[in-house]
């Protein structure tokens, strides 16, 4: 492949061809390898190849270090989680000045983790007993209420009983109903989660055959469960039962339901005593817990200061070890061998980094740098800036350019926004779009590297595309003379005026040309006349075809440059030339007719000319004749186009076959042997000996498909460009509808409220439908015109992206995650 850039006739152009790359081999002594890779990561201009692809991750040389990094990353995640739980923000500015060693970080992280875990377990213990005491207090209060309520209601009952004259007064309540030693009524109190309360009651009932009395009241506020630490709605319960068997059953059941039991006494005096005691314990515990929390938050604060920095170091180290794992180790175990792609221009930088690393690590032997020769396809690398990047992304979304093929991205920078603007021509809308994108550009520094939402992120990424799109739509809007569908006489007065008073706006009859033609764009008088649509349609339709033919021609010419650059004469003679002939013989001629018609002002019917050029080329053109000898020229063009089809189809596969036979004519006898060779060497040989396998039918079919696609495509692609007209029509009609049927209608009522409603509806319709949805649809159509109609003429798009090992890329990625 030729080394001179730009394909000969052009001065070198950065974006036109991807950077020349070469495969380099680095042999690095083992003592300086870490530093070297680190320096190379700083430059970020080399893409390492995995030389140990057959080894599983843990069999590689530096698996242990990666495991250590993973462990540290886990600790850092743990800290981060703890910090976010405690509501401590991580200081965002990394203090990169301090260069710390990985081992130190590891030791420090280990210490901090064990300290934090210890504090946490202590706190948890305290918290747990705190929660238990709170629950206990609640139980004491609530269960106390049970007893009080029961007692008071019993007293009321007794009083009523005593009041009635027929009854004998009964003994005092304090005398037990049964004798103590005969049957012991026991009870248990505790807390059970509210959602389990029903099931709890049911099981208790079943297990004891109804021989219990259960009393429950819900707590107003959720309490923190001591075991899980979660806030749960709970019920206080008291179960009354008789007998030891039942007790053990109930205990088992309440354990199974996660109900915490607490001791309780009937004695009122003891109860109050216990409540005060428990409250005292609660206050004590609270103080201890607070002290513990303070200690913890200072520790976390300390971690927070370094967190970002450590994170950075760990990530960097991990990426370095990942790269080191991709290098193959020499048999002597004294040096590592790295292979990777790098741009040719970066050679000096890489050499300097290697030298520097050797000096800094005080290694006795410097690393060896050499360029390998290979037939493998290098990765594609375009040096883009923040402006061209988004345009290149549009192209890459279709397919990454094959190494050094002509890059449509260069042209996309202009043609994409321009085609968009043709569909979006309205300088009012253009200004709105411009303001929005200028806002994004002014906030560029702030937004960059931040995590934005899906839609905002996408808009921000394409801000320069939108900038150009809006500028171009202001331009086309001026040509169409549309400002929210209102015409303005910006470039002087209209060329037309009424001949007499009888003519109105809605007509073209009676209008005469009184001045020179309107200097720029469409004359404002056209607006609102009955012939506005036929006029604009014819204009935009023809314009679309002209632009389409021009862009397709550009595509075919680019295929010529590709052929020239890769030295493929066959493609020039049997692909480029017939394609040019075919396209221009038919649609180039149509464009010529359009221009001629505009120029001469003739009334010829172009449809008729084009159709009868095929149907009966020998007929007389009559009034449709635009210039002399038109018939002869038409017949000539038709014949040329007809010849172009077999010209595209047949010669190329046959010449390829002949070439192949000439090259391998005398090796035929050995073919089977080579085939075996191929399978033996597997991948490494497959791509350098790719042209050995020659299947004529396959190539012929391929060429057949290609030809058919081009011939049919020439028609359908040209028709496809008519979408420019259609979308533009839709846009102007929609904005006319919003203007006339909403704004003017509301204005006509002479009512402020209706006017305000009208304006609001107008603004929202304009913003939502015209500015957002129309932008999107025009964008998509422009995208299609580029991807399909333009790029299928020349673009292979089967390359792969250059992904260098670079710390700055690593940082960007981690920021976005």
């Amino acid at each position, binding site marked *: 492949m030729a080394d001179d850039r730009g394909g000969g006739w052009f001065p070198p152009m950065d974006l036109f061809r991807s950077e020349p790359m070469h495969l380099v081999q680095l042999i690095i002594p083992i003592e300086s390898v870490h530093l070297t890779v680190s320096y190379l990561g700083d430059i970020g201009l080399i893409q390492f190849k995995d030389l140990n692809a057959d080894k*599983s*991750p*843990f*069999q590689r040389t530096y*698996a242990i270090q*990666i*495991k250590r990094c*993973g*462990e540290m990353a*886990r600790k850092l*995640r*743990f800290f981060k989680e703890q910090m976010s739980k405690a509501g401590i923000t991580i200081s965002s500015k990394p203090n990169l000045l301090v260069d710390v060693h990985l081992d130190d970080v590891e030791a420090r992280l280990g210490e901090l983790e064990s300290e934090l875990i210890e504090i946490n377990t202590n706190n948890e213990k305290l918290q747990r007993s705190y929660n238990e005491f709170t629950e206990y207090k609640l139980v004491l209060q609530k269960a106390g209420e049970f007893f009080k309520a029961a007692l008071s209601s019993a007293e009321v009952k007794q009083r009523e009983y005593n009041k009635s004259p027929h009854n004998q007064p009964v003994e005092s309540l304090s005398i037990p109903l049964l004798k103590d030693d005969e049957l012991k009524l026991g009870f248990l109190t505790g807390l059970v989660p509210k959602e*389990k309360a029903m*099931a709890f009651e*049911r*099981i208790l009932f*079943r*297990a004891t055959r109804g021989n219990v009395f259960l009393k429950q009241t819900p707590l107003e506020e959720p309490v923190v469960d001591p075991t899980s630490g979660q806030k749960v709605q709970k019920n206080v319960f008291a179960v009354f039962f008789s007998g030891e068997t039942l007790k053990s*059953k109930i205990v*088992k*059941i309440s*354990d*199974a*339901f996660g109900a915490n039991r607490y001791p309780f006494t009937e004695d009122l005096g003891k109860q109050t005593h216990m409540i005060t005691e428990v409250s005292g314990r609660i206050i004590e515990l609270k103080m201890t817990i607070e002290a513990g929390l303070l200690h913890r938050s200072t520790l976390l604060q300390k971690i927070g200061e370094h967190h970002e920095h450590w994170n950075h170091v760990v990530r960097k180290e991990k990426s370095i070890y990942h790269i080191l794992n991709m290098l193959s180790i020499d048999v002597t175990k004294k040096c590592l061998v790295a292979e990777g792609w790098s741009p040719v221009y970066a050679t000096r930088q890489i050499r300097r980094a290697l030298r520097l690393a050797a000096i800094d690590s005080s290694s006795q032997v410097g690393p060896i740098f050499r360029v390998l020769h290979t037939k493998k396809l290098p990765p594609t690398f375009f040096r883009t800036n923040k402006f061209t990047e988004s345009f290149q992304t549009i192209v890459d979304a279709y397919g990454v350019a094959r190494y050094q093929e002509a890059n449509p991205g260069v042209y996309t920078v202009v043609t994409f926004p321009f085609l968009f603007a043709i569909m979006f021509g309205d300088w009012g809308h253009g200004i709105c779009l411009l303001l929005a994108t200028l806002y994004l550009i002014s906030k560029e520094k702030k937004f960059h590297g931040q995590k934005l939402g899906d839609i905002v992120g996408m808009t921000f990424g394409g801000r320069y595309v939108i900038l150009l799109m809006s500028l171009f739509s202001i331009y086309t809007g001026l040509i169409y003379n549309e400002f929210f569908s209102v015409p303005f006489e910006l470039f002087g007065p209209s060329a037309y005026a009424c001949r007499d008073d009888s003519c109105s706006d809605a007509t073209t009859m009676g209008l005469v040309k009184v001045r020179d033609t309107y200097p720029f764009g469409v004359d404002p008088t056209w607006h609102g006349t009955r012939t506005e649509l036929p006029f604009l349609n014819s204009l935009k339709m023809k314009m679309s075809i002209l632009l389409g033919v021009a862009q397709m021609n550009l595509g075919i010419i680019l295929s010529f440059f590709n052929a020239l650059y890769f030295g493929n004469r066959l493609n020039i003679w049997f692909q480029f030339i017939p394609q040019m002939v075919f396209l221009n013989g038919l649609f180039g001629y149509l464009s010529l007719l359009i221009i001629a018609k505009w120029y001469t002002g003739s009334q010829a019917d172009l449809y008729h000319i084009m159709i009868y050029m095929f149907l009966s080329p020998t007929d007389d053109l009559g009034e449709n004749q635009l210039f002399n000898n038109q018939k002869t020229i038409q017949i000539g063009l038709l014949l040329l186009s007809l010849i172009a089809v077999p010209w595209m189809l047949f010669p190329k596969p046959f010449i390829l076959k002949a070439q192949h036979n000439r090259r391998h004519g005398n090796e035929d006898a050995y073919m089977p042997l080579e085939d075996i060779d191929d399978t033996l060497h597997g991948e490494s040989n497959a791509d350098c000996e790719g042209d050995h396998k020659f299947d004529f039918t396959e190539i012929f079919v391929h060429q057949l498909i290609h030809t058919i696609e081009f011939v049919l495509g020439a028609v359908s692609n040209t028709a496809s460009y008519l979408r420019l007209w259609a979308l533009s029509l839709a846009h102007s009609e929609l904005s006319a509808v919003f203007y006339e049927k909403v704004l003017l209608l509301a204005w006509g009522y002479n009512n402020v409220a209706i006017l305000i409603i009208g304006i609001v509806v107008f603004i929202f319709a304009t913003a939502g439908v015209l500015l957002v949805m129309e932008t999107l649809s025009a964008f998509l159509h422009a995208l299609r015109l580029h991807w399909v109609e333009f790029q299928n003429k020349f673009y292979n798009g089967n390359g792969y992206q250059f992904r260098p090992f670079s710390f700055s890329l690593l940082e960007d990625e981690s920021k976005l995650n």
Partner: protein
Amino acid sequence: MYGFEAMTFNIHGGYLEAIVRGHRSGLLTAADYNNLCQCETLDDIKMHLSATEYGPYLQNEPSPLHTTTIVEKCTLKLVDEYKHMLCQATEPMSTFLEYITYGHMIDNVVLIVTGTLHERDVQELLEKCHPLGMFDSIATLAVAQNMRELYRLVLVDTPLAPYFSECITSEDLDDMNIEIMRNTLYKAYLEDFYRFCQKLGGATAEIMSDLLAFEADRRAVNITINSIGTELTREDRRKLYSSFGLLYPYGHEELAICEDIDQVRGVMEKYPPYQPIFSKLSYGESQMLDKAFYEEEVKRLCLSFEQQFHYGVFFAYMRLREQEIRNLMWISECVAQNQKSRVHDSVVFIF
């Protein structure tokens, strides 16, 4: 509506089928197993798994790792996936998904009951239970003394209640009748599941009846082999066989009277689908039978993914994941106990 699932299945089942097929593609492959088998320590296993779908579940585990943690986390992933699918499912798929867990429920009940019989701590037992087979009052099982209580106290609230009708006795629980209870429950469960799938009809019925029939036959063989030499009578043994499957009813007659493994083999070899399983074993050997059955099952489960618009894929996916977790457990155990030579004994490759 056989043959017309394609028209309506995707209304309710399409999303979940897509999900489950996505999950399936995350199953470990033979290459993964090969790598795992070469691991030297549990950390290596963790490292390898972190590149798979298990990654997020294992990445925050501190380094001295235990086999139980690995298994626990892997199971957790399965449970999360299951719960997600169950949340999204509508009738009758949600019922179908619930049916899948009943088997675990039975196992859990048996585990707890046996555990309490041997006076183990309930909490400890609860930790050993499979999370898919948990139900609210499971811990209360420890209270029960006999089958009747077990049923009346706890299981009446669970979906297992109908299966109990055949095994309510007032006998005290012991190892023998717990095992009989397990098998009776399982038989009732399989039959119920089978009927349910038949009711669903279509491809689900076709595929699930095949899978369940295999399951029933396998259980029949296992029951036979395990009951050889015990005091279980022929009649009782026959009662434990599910009333469907390839062996039903003539195979069951013959299995019921088998007295040793070679007789079982003789019975099974009459059935062509089971012939290859038994022909791999040498005479008198039953250790490798489990693995052979597992391999056959995995093959059948994988095949169910070849057909679309049926619920069998959910069953198959859950089973395959469980098999995968069993594999991981075995590999981790072998690695942890330095028995790497035995790694291949019990690992069933899924793909």
